[in-house]
Every structure is written in C-alpha cells, then in structure tokens.
C-alpha cells in the first residue's frame, strides 16, 4: 500500500532542520524538508525505508512500517561537521562536494605559538604548501608556494583573499645582491586572533573563479564574526615570547687576525685584517687591534651571542562580540610589539577589526568587515651585501677580536669607528644605532556585501572590497658613515590601492535527485601602485637629518594603474549527494596588454564521487571514501603597466640648464605579449577508516604553464638588462599526502592525534624559448653564483663554475697563480627543495594538551656566500684542516697548455683564490628537519571557574624554532635566503636564526 508520509526533522537542539534530503532507499524518489524542517512525501510503500541526510549530520534511516508521520532527530556528524569549507567567491560548500583538494586550517592553529608573519606560520602545516621565511627579523616577508613554481619570472605566490576580497601582498622592499632590507608583505597585516579559518585552494579548479591571479592557488582567510553570539562576549588573547639567536657557526679558532701567518703589528695592519683571520697561531700574547689597543691574541667564540640582543614579542588582542538573530557584530583591537634580536630593530602592528552582519529585511542580508592597521617597522636589518649590514661583522669579524670592542660604533666626533679597511663593511654598532630606516604603513581593508534573495532559489549579490595601503619610508645614511661621511637620506611615499567590485546572480534548486547551484557574474579589479621619492646626499649641517638640509637632491614619481575586467559562471550539479559535477568558465580582460591580445577565456570541469555512500554494503571499517578528478585552466601572467612601448624620461636634474632625456626603461618593451595559461589536471582520494581513527587524503596533480610572459635577462651589450617575452613551458607534477590519525583515544579522556603531511613536487622547465636555453633569475653578491633556469631542468638552478678540468679529468691550473682555472659557466644544483613535510602531534588529557610540529624540506641546495667569505677570510675549518696553514696547499694537475703542473701555495692564497671563483665550493644541501613548534597548554576546567563570570581560561607555554634536528650546510641556517623572490637558493649575511619561547593566555568572558 502506498501512502503520503510527512513529519518534521529536528536537530540536536530540537530546532527544525531545513533542507534535509528525504529519499526512499534504493530508489530515486525523494524530497527536501522545508525551512522549518517539515517534509511530505507521497507514494511511499509500507515496507520502504526513508533515508534522511543533511550536510554535517549523520545519515539516518527509518522504516515506514505503515506510519504516516515520522519525526526524526538528526545527530551531528562529528567527523564531518567541520567539513564545510569556504570556497571561491566566499561560497561555503560541503567539502564532500568538491572535486579538488582543499585544506582548511583553523585560526587557533596560528594563535598560540605565533609568528608575526602569517606566511611563516604555514610552514609544515599543509601538504603541498611550501612556506619559506627570510632571514630578516620581525615583520619580514615570506614566500608561500602551492604546488611549486609555475611562472619562470612572474609571481609564484598565491592570491590572498580575505572574506571574499583579494588583498595586496606586495613585498614592498627586499634585499638583493646589492643588499637592502625586507619591509615585509601584505600578510603581515593579518592578526591571527581574527582568523576563523584559512582555506588553501591548491588546484586550478579551486582557483578558476578568482581569475588570472589565482593561477598559483588561493589562500582564503575568513575572519571571525559575531554569528551565534548570545549576548555580549569578551575574549582576550595575550602572548609574550622572547627570542634568542642561535649561533650555528663553527669557525676555526687556531689562527687569529692577520695575513700570511702573521699577526698585525700596527693599527693599520690590524684594520686591514679586521675581517681576515689568516694570522699567526693564537697564543694569548698581546696583539694590536683595529683601535690601536693591544689585547690578548686569543679566540673570541661568542661574538654572535655577544652582539645580538634578546628579542621579544608581546601581543594582545581583545575582542567583543554580540548580537541576536537579526544582527551580530564582533570588534577586535590588537597590538603586537616585536623587538628583533638585531639591536633597535622592531616591528609594531596595531589592528582594529569590525565585522557587522545583519538581516536588513526578510530577504536582504548585509555583511561587512572593515579593518584598520597601523604598522611600524624600525631599523630593519640590512642583509646580503655588506653596506649597513650589521650581520657581516657578527659573522666575519676576525676570530681574535671581541665584537664588543667595536661598540659604541663611533669615534669622538660621532663618525663611524672603523674596524676594518673596507669602508663598505660597516661597524655593526654604527649600523644598528646610527643608520636609520623606518616604514610606516596605514592600511584600510573593507569588504561590504549585500545579498537579496529574489526567490528561495534565486539571489543577487553585490560586493565591494577595497585594500588601501599607504606606506611612508625613510632611510638615513648618517653623517660620518665611513663610505660617504657627508651622509644622505631618502623618503618614499608608496600607495598601493586595490578595489574589486563584483556582482553575481546565484541559482540554487533541487530537482528530484539532482541539485543545482549555479552563478553568473562579473568583477572589476582596479589597482593603482604609486610611488613618490625624494632624496639626496650631503647634509649641509651635519647630523641634521631632514630633506631641506641636503646639498643635492633627486626626485622620482611613479604612477601605475591597472585594471582587469572579468565575466564568469559556474555550475555545481549533484546527484543524491553522491556524485558531484562542477563546471566553471571565466574571461578576463587586462589593461596592461595590447588590445589585440588582452583577453583570455579559461574553463574547468571537476567530478567527485562518494564511494562510501554509494556502496550498498559498506564494510564497518570504512567510514568514508571519495574519489575526485578535475581539469582546469587559469589564464594570467600579465605584465606590469607600461610594458608595451618604449618611452623616454627626463632626469630630475638637468645638466647645467639643458634637460637630460634617456630611454626610461631597462626592459625591452613588447607589444605582442599575451597572457599565459596554466592547466592543471588532478586526481585524488580521501578516506576515513575505523570511525575516523585513520584518515588519508592523497592527491596527484600535473600543472603545466605555457606561454609565460617572462622577464628574461639579456646581455648588457644589448643595451638593456632584460626583455619581456612570452616563452616557456613549465611543468609541476606531484603528489600530496595527508595522513591523520588518532592512535590513542581512551574513555578517560586521553587523546593522541597525529597528522603527517608530505608533498613531492617534480618540476621541469620544459622549454624557455627558441634560442634562449637559459634564463637568469638572480645573482649572488660574490658575482660567481647565480640562479638560472636551464631548459629541461628543475626550476631555479644554482649555477656557476667548477674547477676547469682537462679531458682526463685533471684540474687545470693557472701557471702564474697556481690557482685552479675557473671552468665554464654551468648549472650546479637545484635551488628549490622538491620534498616538503610536516608532522603534528597533539596529546591531550583532560585540560592539558601537548603539541609539537616537526617539519622538513629535502632535495634542495643553497649557495652560501657566508661560507664562501669564511673560506676567503680564513674562518672556515677547511682553512686549518690537515695543518695547511703550516704546510701550504700543494696542487697537482695540468697547466693551461696541458703540461703537468704542481705548486705549493700558502693556504691563504689558495683558499681566498678559490672562494670567489669556484662556485661549487660553497654549494651545500639545504635539507633540514626542525622542531618548529611546541605548545604545552592547560585549560582550567569549568568546575574550577565556578560562578566566576569567565567561560574559559587556558594558559600555554609556546615555543618556535626550537631545534634543528638535521642539516647539512655548515655555519648558517639552511632556511636563510635573504628574499622571497623567485631566485631561491642564495644566502648571505642574514640575521642569524632565532629560537623563541613564551606564554600564551586566552580568556573568554
């Protein structure tokens, strides 16, 4: 007999549960519950079984057994409850429904053992995400890569989207071969305490809807709101950590300052050898030093610890939230104050975040988040090249000189106190106490969205997001700096503003067993990058640092606007919540390309299938299983503004009264540039076994980028430094594994959760361009090591010279010098590690929890200029091994004419000779394994808090970067590259690595 069955579905709080799918088991017949949870299904047989399913709840089956009314209470599916993820355009989806890999990280993962830069905090947490920090001190930038490098020379970092609105992540200042300092990136503005969750969209499909800038993946940040508040709640989160440098150097301490085995005998000689340790055997006898004072000639092993100070970070956030069904809000204010280990270096961030959501009318929903930041960087450490870089002295000071004797860095006139004969190698105390730089960023981030539900299946949504950055830079080379005692200064005002406007029409409807989610929309992105510079040299009145006091000055103005207009559409079709099909398509128009080539269309398609739900006889150990596959294209890689035409500029200062005009670019322009295409194919399986005790998420992907607009470096004899070309094919293939489990779980409340992630990215630069087999990316200040692309090789190879060898493998020596002849320029080793991994463990018992994270990277190499310098300055162990200081180095091989050759050179002549010419002497594996993070927390139980108006309190001991468990490169940290650009694998005089410890207190009222 058939009947109509009706009833109500309620949730665990006895509230009506809307939209629950009600189907007759084994058929396609079914309906959905209404917004109140009521349903009615006709034509049901008495013997039928009804299946009730809803996202986030355990599926429930009930026999009809002749009843006409069935009331059902669904139980939350703890395993899947958190699996609703925010995807492209801010649309929440059941993770199950996705045809691609996404990873979500909860905000709480960042708030305990915190990093000032969020990017650094990602290290080791997500399979396929390679986060690299720079050796800069607080507030520096980080390089985050998702599934490897796709673009040969363009940005390879993901797009960051906060609450649906892209934000700027420009690294506004960085160190290169000529030095400089890192003024951080846009991610520095994000206060971890405001983060609800962070979703990493790795593949092309995931990112297709964000358009061209999403080709490298997207990191979506959702900030906390007042949703679900009942009354007013207050939260406090405070962390205090202190930070100490780790001295990784292991120099020789047998021979001291001096040259050719002789200790200095006069002040001038001591100055000439202030950073040279080729002297006599250390014997404690009095020897004159750079300041003319004689001190014992003995090893100074603690110069690094003695120079750097204890740094600290104190961060405090207070948040208030509240609301009711109609409206809610959350406001937070935070202050994070970091003092770096480099004296006088600091970073302060104040941020204010307000989220307001309201149901303005029955069908009208308003959401907004605004954030205002005030960020101050002070005296960020110079890196790489020696001018103004305090780290050079800390590493390279002769090993018999105590660095503290260089203090206070100035002489009686307040001029720099020289400690070595190279005026460009600053006294470190002068560099930290007298050289000044500052950056002050004011940033406003706003996102406003209004949604109107036209019907219950059709809505229209408009959204405007804006990111306004103004950064004031000032840098001063003070009076008395050794290389230009008249001093100089410069100021910049940099404005980076981006606004996105988006309008979309959304359609959501269930038709029988099918449900369709579709959107069509458009977006306009408008970005302006402005820079105004005024600076000059030679202060008229010494020690007075303002622009009007300069003898000569210079100015420069840059104004670079940029627009992308887009139209897009997507459709998600699902069948019985088992089979999911997704299509997207988008067309972008770029203002920086010529009209003939300025548009690109790119589609994507994806399929997901829930095996476990499809099985009629699911084994009990199989909790969940899904297979997925997708194919997607993303177009992008547009040039900066004004790259199409040759233009001429006028110099700020004329010659006499005659204007000076020159070609305004060092890059050869190109009218014919096109956007690139990145095509990703991926497959994956996700399973959960034994009631979620074990989970495995496995992804294989193949990403190919073609037609990349590349800035290729040219021979300087072409007149230009580089050229823009559409070239290349880069392939990234890889696997990502996420294995999670709960090895121990006792009824008494003891839990051990572990999660291991690993990713291997096989990268190949398949093709650069016809007639262009190599492409230059970066160069070390030593000018004998480079980062290059070579056709057929992995991305970004370290390149340079080995010793030249003849056909029989003999080293070829220069007869005049006895030194090995520098071989031809060639590739040496890969700069980007292909294998990344992380292991997280959390053990908890009642209120106590202990967590730690170990992460590592393998398979990459680093050219260490610090080690090259140490070899040439006589600090390396190799310069004393085998008693070479006494016996000299005997070389045997052939000369350039092929005659056999042998000669004995002093260790100094040999090692200082090869250190700067033979690159591979200073190339090391950059493999490492680090104990990255450790937390030990205690939550005070509610029973103890009793009637206090406190909901919860937890206190944690936190630590970051505790130990390096494994590394190969001597004397420096394997993670000490000095910038976050594409040319990874170069190291030189960065801030030494640090270890930090502290306490974190979280209180909720």
């Amino acid at each position, binding site marked *: 007999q058939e009947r109509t069955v009706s009833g109500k579905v309620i949730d665990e709080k006895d509230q009506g549960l809307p939209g629950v799918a009600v189907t007759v088991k084994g058929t396609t017949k079914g309906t959905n519950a209404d917004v109140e949870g009521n349903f009615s299904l006709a034509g049901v047989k008495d013997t039928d079984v009804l299946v009730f399913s809803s996202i986030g709840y355990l599926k429930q089956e009930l026999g009809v057994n002749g009843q006409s009314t069935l009331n059902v209470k669904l139980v939350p599916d703890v395993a899947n409850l958190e699996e609703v993820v925010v995807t492209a355009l801010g649309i929440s989806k059941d993770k199950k429904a996705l045809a691609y890999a996404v990873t979500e990280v909860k905000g709480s993962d960042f708030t305990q053992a915190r990093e000032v830069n969020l990017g650094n905090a990602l290290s080791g947490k997500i399979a396929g995400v390679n986060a690299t920090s720079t050796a800069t001190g607080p507030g520096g930038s980080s390089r985050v890569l998702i599934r490897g490098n796709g673009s040969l020379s363009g940005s390879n970092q993901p797009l960051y989207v906060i609450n649906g609105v892209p934000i700027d992540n420009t690294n506004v200042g960085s160190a290169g071969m000529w030095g400089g300092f890192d003024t951080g990136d846009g991610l520095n503005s994000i206060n971890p305490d405001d983060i609800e969750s962070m979703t990493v969209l790795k593949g092309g499909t995931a990112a297709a809807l964000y358009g061209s800038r999403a080709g490298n993946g997207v990191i979506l940040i959702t900030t906390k709101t007042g949703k679900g508040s009942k009354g007013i709640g207050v939260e406090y989160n405070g962390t205090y950590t202190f930070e100490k440098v780790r001295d990784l150097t292991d120099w020789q301490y047998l021979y001291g300052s001096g040259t050719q085995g002789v200790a200095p005998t006069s002040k001038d000689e001591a100055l000439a050898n202030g950073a040279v340790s080729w002297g006599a055997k250390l014997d404690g006898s009095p020897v004159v030093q750079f300041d003319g004072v004689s001190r014992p000639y003995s090893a100074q092993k603690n110069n690094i610890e003695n120079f750097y100070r204890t740094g600290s970070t104190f961060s405090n956030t207070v948040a208030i939230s509240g609301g009711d069904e109609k409206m809610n809000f959350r406001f937070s204010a935070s202050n994070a104050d970091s003092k770096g280990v480099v004296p006088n270096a600091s970073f302060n961030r104040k941020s204010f975040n307000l989220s307001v959501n309201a149901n303005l009318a029955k069908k009208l929903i308003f959401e907004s988040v605004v954030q205002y930041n005030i960020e101050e960087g002070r005296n960020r450490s110079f890196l790489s090249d020696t001018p103004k870089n305090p780290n050079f002295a800390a590493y390279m000071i002769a090993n018999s000189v105590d660095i503290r004797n260089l203090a206070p860095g100035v002489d009686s006139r307040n001029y720099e106190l020289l400690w070595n004969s190279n005026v460009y190698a600053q006294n470190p105390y002068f560099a930290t106490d007298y050289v000044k730089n500052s950056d002050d960023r004011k940033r406003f981030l706003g996102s406003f969205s209004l949604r109107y539900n036209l019907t219950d299946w059709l809505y229209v949504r408009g959204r405007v997001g804006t990111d306004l950055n103004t950064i004031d830079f000032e840098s001063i080379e003070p009076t008395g700096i050794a290389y230009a005692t008249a001093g100089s200064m410069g100021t910049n005002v940099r404005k980076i503003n981006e606004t996105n406007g988006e309008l979309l029409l959304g359609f959501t409807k269930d038709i029988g067993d099918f449900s369709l989610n579709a959107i069509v929309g458009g977006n306009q992105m408008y970005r302006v990058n402005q820079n105004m510079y005024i600076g000059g040299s030679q202060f008229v009145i010494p020690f007075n640092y303002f622009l009007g006091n300069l003898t000569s000055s210079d100015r420069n103005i840059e104004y670079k606007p940029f627009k992308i207009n887009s139209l897009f559409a997507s459709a998600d079709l699902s069948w019985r919540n088992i089979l999911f099909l997704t299509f997207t398509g988008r067309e972008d128009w770029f203002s920086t390309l010529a009209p003939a080539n300025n548009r690109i269309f790119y589609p994507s398609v994806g399929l997901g299938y829930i095996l476990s739900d499809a099985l009629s006889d699911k084994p009990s150990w199989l909790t969940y299983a899904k297979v997925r596959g997708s194919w997607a294209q993303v177009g992008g890689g547009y040039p900066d503004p004004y790259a199409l035409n040759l233009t001429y500029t006028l*110099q700020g200062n004329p010659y006499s009264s005659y204007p000076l*005009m020159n070609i305004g670019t060092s890059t050869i322009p190109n009218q014919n540039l096109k956007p690139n295409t990145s095509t990703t194919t991926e497959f994956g399986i996700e399973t959960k076994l034994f009631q979620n005790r074990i989970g495995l998420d496995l992804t294989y992907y193949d990403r190919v980028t073609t037609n990349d607009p590349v800035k290729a470096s040219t*021979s300087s*004899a072409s*007149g230009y430094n580089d050229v823009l070309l559409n070239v290349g094919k880069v392939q990234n293939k890889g696997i990502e594994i996420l294995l999670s489990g709960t090895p121990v779980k006792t009824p008494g409340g003891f839990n051990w959760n572990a999660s291991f992630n690993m990713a291997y990215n096989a990268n190949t630069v398949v093709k650069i361009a016809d007639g262009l087999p190599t492409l230059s990316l970066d160069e070390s200040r030593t000018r004998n090591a480079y980062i290059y692309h070579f056709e057929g090789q992995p991305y970004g190879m370290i390149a340079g010279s080995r010793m030249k060898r003849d056909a029989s493998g003999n080293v070829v020596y220069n007869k005049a010098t006895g030194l090995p002849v520098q071989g031809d320029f060639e590739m040496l080793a890969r700069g980007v590690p292909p294998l990344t991994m992380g292991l997280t463990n959390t053990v908890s018992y009642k209120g106590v929890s202990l967590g730690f994270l170990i992460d590592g990277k393998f398979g990459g190499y680093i050219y260490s200029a610090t080690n090259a310098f140490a070899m040439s300055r006589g600090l390396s162990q190799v310069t004393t091994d085998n008693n070479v200081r006494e016996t000299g180095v005997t070389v045997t091989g052939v000369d350039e004419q092929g005659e056999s050759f042998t000669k004995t050179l002093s260790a100094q002549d040999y090692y200082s000779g090869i250190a700067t010419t033979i690159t591979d002497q200073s190339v090391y594996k950059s493999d490492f394994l680090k104990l990255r993070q450790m937390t030990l927390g205690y939550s005070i139980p509610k029973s103890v808090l009793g009637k206090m108006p406190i909901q919860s309190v937890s206190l944690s001991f936190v630590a970051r970067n505790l130990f390096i468990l494994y590394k190969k490169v001597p004397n420096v940290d394997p993670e000490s590259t000095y910038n976050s650009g594409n040319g990874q694998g170069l190291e030189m005089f960065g801030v030494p690595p640090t270890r930090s410890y502290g306490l974190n207190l979280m209180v909720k009222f």
Partner: protein
Amino acid sequence: CDKGFVELNTNPNAVTDPILENLFTYNVVKTAGTGYENHRGNLIYAGAMVQHFASLTTYWSGDKYLSNVEYYSAFFETAYTNQVKEIEQIIALTKDKPELSNKYNIARIWRAFIYHRISDLYGDIPYSEAGQGYLDGILSPKYDTQETIYKDMLKELEEAGAGLDAAKVSYGAADPLYAGDVVKWKKFANSLMLRLGMRMTKVDAASAETYVKKAIAGGLMTSNDDVARLLHYDTNDNNRNLDANTLKTQEYDAANLKGKANSKLSKTLVDFLQTNDDPRLPYIATLWQGNADRNQLPTASAPAAQKGLPNGYDPTTIKTLIPSWNDNSLATYSEANLNYIASNAAPTVFQSYAEVEYLLAEAALRGWGDGAAATHYNKGVTAAMSLFSIYGATIPAASITAYLTVHPFATSGMTAQMEQIHTQYWAATFLNSYEAYANWRRTGYPALKPTNYTGNATGGVIPRRLRYPASETSKNAVNYRAAVAIQGPDDFLTRVWWDK
C-alpha cells in the same frame, strides 16, 4: 570590456616622442661616467695599472693585478647600458633623414668614441649587433674582432666628418662639447681618427699610416679651444665630475680620514713630476691638508712636500720596502688635488689638443706627418700645461718655456724620443686612465716597473686587458665562448689585437 584600457596603460610621467637634443646631452654626460665605472674601471684598474694611483688596500685591484670580477666588469656593463643604448637610439632616429644629417654624423663620431674605449679595455667586443635590444631585437649580440671594429670606426669617422655641413642644423647649445659647432666636431673626428690610426702601429703599420695621414689632411684640433671636454658644476651627480667626486667622497674624505685614505698618488707619477720640476705638480697633487682645507694649499701642495706611494704593497708588506713605516706614514703621501685637476667642477677631458700634438710628434718621427717632431712635442707640452686654466690654475708661459728649456726634445734616437713623447702623453692623460692605459700598452712608455703582490692574477706582469664581465659568460655564453676561442683565454694577459 576593455574600454579605456589603452589610455590607462599610457605612462603620464614619460613621453613617447624623444627630443634628440636632450638625448644627446644625456649621452655625453653619461659617457663621462656614472661614478660607478669611473671608480672601478678608470681609477682602480686602469689608473693604478698605469701607476697614476697606488694603494695599500687589496680592493685597488689594478695596483696589485688582482682579479676582482665586479671591478673588471664595471666599465663593460655600464658602457653598454648607459652609453651605447642611447647613442644607438639617436643614430636610429636620425639615420636617412637628410635634414638631420649633422645630428646623425655627430652621433656617429660620438659612437666611435664610446666603442673605442670599450674595445681598448676588453679587446673583441659586441659592436655590429650591440645596443640593438629594442631596435633590432638582438638580445645576445655577437662579438666582433677588434680589427673589424677599428676599421669600421675609422670608416665611420671619415664618413661622418666629411658629412658635416655648417649650413645645416645641429644640436646647438645642447651639445655640451662644441655647442653645435660642426667645424670643431670635424676636428674632433679627425683627432680621434689620429688616435685610432696610431693605435694600429704595432699590428698594421700600413693602415696606421693611411689613417694618420687622412686625419692630418682632414684637419685636427689646433688649440686648447678645440679640446673635447665636458664642463662640470658641483651641484649634483648629473653635473659633477664623477671621477673627482669618487676620489673626494669614496677615497680621500680628507677632513675625516686625515690622510689615511685607501688610495694615494703613485710614486711613479709624483717622482716624474717632481724630479722634472713640472709646474703642473701643485695642481695635480697635494697632501691631505690641502684637500681638507683649501687654505692649507700653499704648504700642502708645495712641490717639495709631495710624495708618491709605491705600487703593489699592503700595510704589512710595505715595511719590507720602508722599514720605518708606521701608522702615521700614510698621511704624508700625496693625494690628487681636489681643488684643481680633481675638482668636482673640473671638466672631463675626452681628448685633448696636447694628445694630438704628441701623436703628431710621433707621426713626424715615423715620417708620416708634417713638421718637426720637436715642434709638435713643444706644442704638446705647452698645450698640456696651459690647459690647466680649465682647472682654475694658471701656469705662466714663462714656467712652460723654462720647463722646455730644461727638458728639450731629444735630438736623436727614436727610442728616447718616443719615450719622451709618450711619457708626456701619460702625464697629460692623468684621470683619463682609459687612454693612458691604451697608449702605454701600445708604446710601452713610460717604462713601468711591475709589482708582484702575493696572489696576483698575472704572475707579476702588468695586465694587458680586462676580463669580460661574468654576466657575459652566462647571459651571452655562446658568443662569449666564440670570442674567447678567437681572441685567446679570457684572462689579464691575453693581448688585444692592436697590442699583439
């Protein structure tokens, strides 16, 4: 969907239509140097190798024949991107436009000047395909042999000089060398032809003779009014003499270092001026006190007080030569005089009339020129000394006459005469070390005593060229290797074509 994009992508702070006059002024100003390559190429390498300068430091690579990749790369890399780039553009913009023929021909003369300095320092270099990154899309230019380059430059000078027409428009006042005077440009073209022609005496005497004669016939500089020089003003880096400013700010910083500077004048130079009672000495040299305070000049620049530093030592090894050396010794050695020849407002001399007369003296000795060698020699010395007026110094005619009386031109002996001419040439090209170094390599005068500092790159021989920049070995690898295969190993001892 792309409305307004073209306007949006047009730079409001730049122009697409060049102004030739302004491009040309820029080109001449930058050929005088940006400071960077002046310091490394002109002073530290060439200036110390010809023993105008000396230093106790190891970064003065030319003092000790050390290999410093950055310093030997500096001139090459800067010359192409700051000099060649714009001159090739000017030539492309003026070529085949009859009404702009003077601008075109002046640019060709200037282009020959730019390239001959690069080639003299490095040998075979990119020439026919150089500077064409935008114009012809050549990203990796091939190297041409120095022989080809020289022959082409001489042809260019001949054609361009002949093509100048006083009736047509020129660069006018924006021409910082001759204010648009095409007659003077023609003299300069021929004077440069004389320089280049004479450069070939060792390798191709017949061609040398041909071009020297052509140059003479075409008309050379005839007085110090014809000198190819760029005036400077001590206001900012687009106006200063950047060789001088480099010495002032990066080397001497006299008020601060009080004589303990990293570089000094070479003993070879100071001894030559001092032993011959050269009236130029006080305007070339001074002790640091004169550089720190102009009022100290009368005592600080007194000829007897001047002392040159021996080349090739460091603070330790100098004691083997001068046992009494101590920390106060360095301050007693002479520096270039920042108030006169090395003033920030001193003109940069690209080619002087004195150099022309010295080359004419040599031509006379070889029987290629008119007049007597002695006459040209005397005119050369007179011109070289009286040119000091452009540095604000007046050397009385009587002093010059007295000098010539005491040091008359040798009456016989080609060797002695050549030595006399070219030692004067060497003294007259102080601060134009590119030229001093090239002429020394060709003639061997003055006879410089090499040094043999430990770890030097040549085994104690004065280098014969600079190595190519490291960037060429990688960014232009194919052409670089081809060039090395033809010219010889890329080291400091391989001789350039005209030096064979």
